């Protein structure tokens, strides 16, 4: 069944339809939450909260638009709010600590054994929330320009410049971190 049909059923209180929507989108919502928080437990908690909000706000969803874009917008807003709250309460888990606490057998932890990947991960972590989220949506989750424009409710031109700016920022953080990135001579 299409998302729009499931959303319509969900608007009538059909929990089965909501479960189906959850199964279709949980992976991407969890990934976004995880990339934003660097913490599995927080990402799990955020994913539950995002779907709870989706359930509570489903009445406002216009079934002519894309459910996934609507859901990602909710996810992005909640993740950014959560990170800002943590910054205010100075409860940010440093990446080093997050990695130390991570399960060593998880694939994401194995990935950081590669120096360059680790540097990119750390550089991404140092960006502002809005810069980080656009990189996550475009380069990690693979959303199109059009989808990102709908998530942020902005023009395609604005999306292009935001992606350009965020990538440039990421690159400059990497160049400051290590000469390896400055003396690049191609792959």
């Amino acid at each position, binding site marked *: 069944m299409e998302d729009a049909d499931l959303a319509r059923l969900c608007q009538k*209180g059909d*929990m089965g339809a*909501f*479960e189906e929507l*959850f*199964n279709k989108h*949980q*992976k991407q919502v*969890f*990934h976004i939450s*995880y990339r934003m928080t660097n913490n*599995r437990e927080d*990402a*799990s908690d955020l*994913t*539950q*909260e995002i*779907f*709870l909000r989706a*359930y*509570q*706000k*489903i*009445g*406002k969803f216009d079934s002519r638009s894309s459910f996934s874009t609507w859901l990602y917008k909710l996810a992005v807003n909640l993740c950014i709010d959560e990170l800002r709250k943590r910054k205010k309460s100075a409860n940010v888990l440093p990446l080093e600590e997050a990695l130390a606490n991570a399960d060593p057998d*998880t*694939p*994401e932890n*194995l*990935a950081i054994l590669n120096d*360059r*990947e680790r540097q*990119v*991960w750390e550089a*991404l972590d140092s960006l502002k929330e809005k810069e980080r989220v656009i*990189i996550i949506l*475009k*380069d*990690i989750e*693979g959303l199109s*320009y059009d989808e990102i424009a709908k998530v942020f409710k902005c023009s395609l031109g604005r999306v*292009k*410049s935001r*992606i*350009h700016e965020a*990538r*440039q920022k*990421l*690159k400059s953080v*990497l160049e400051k971190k290590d000469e390896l*990135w400055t003396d*690049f*001579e*191609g*792959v």
Partner: protein
Amino acid sequence: MTLKCSYFYKSLSTYLDGELDPQEHERIEKHIAHCSKCRDEVERLKEIMGILKGMPAPELPTQLWELTRRRVETASEKTSREWGFRIPKWSFAPVGVVVFALLVLLVGSQIFYKTEIAPPTVDTFIQEHILSSSDRIMPPDLLSELTVAQTVQVIEDTGSNKNTSELDMLMEVHYGIISENGS
């Protein structure tokens, strides 16, 4: 970086995403074929994007649906307890709009009626006329307590009425009272 490079620089990201129109795409390809700086820039961005794209996806936690369903049910039960029956939270929005509209109407009508000036009664009209044709100053609260006849009496007692004939005429028209002067 040459002027030409800075012109293309901002489009390199979009070029790598394949989101440029074919003509612009071709122009950049021609440029980077000859410009080593821009070529390096493209390769650097490509590597960063490649690493980001290749980051292993985290595994989903177990029982994520169960946890979410429980959270949804707890929130719904809380709403039910507060309202006595189960209402999806989003359905409060139209109710809120109706309540707000009713409040606006109520407050608006109160303001309207309060600001509307009640038309003067015949008595008030005559009293005001009497006073305006005399040099007597009378406080409004005292005026409202006196009848027309008493007002006339006050003015006559103080001997300050300047236009008794007009006063007699008004009294006769509205009350059928003919004063001693007018008889």
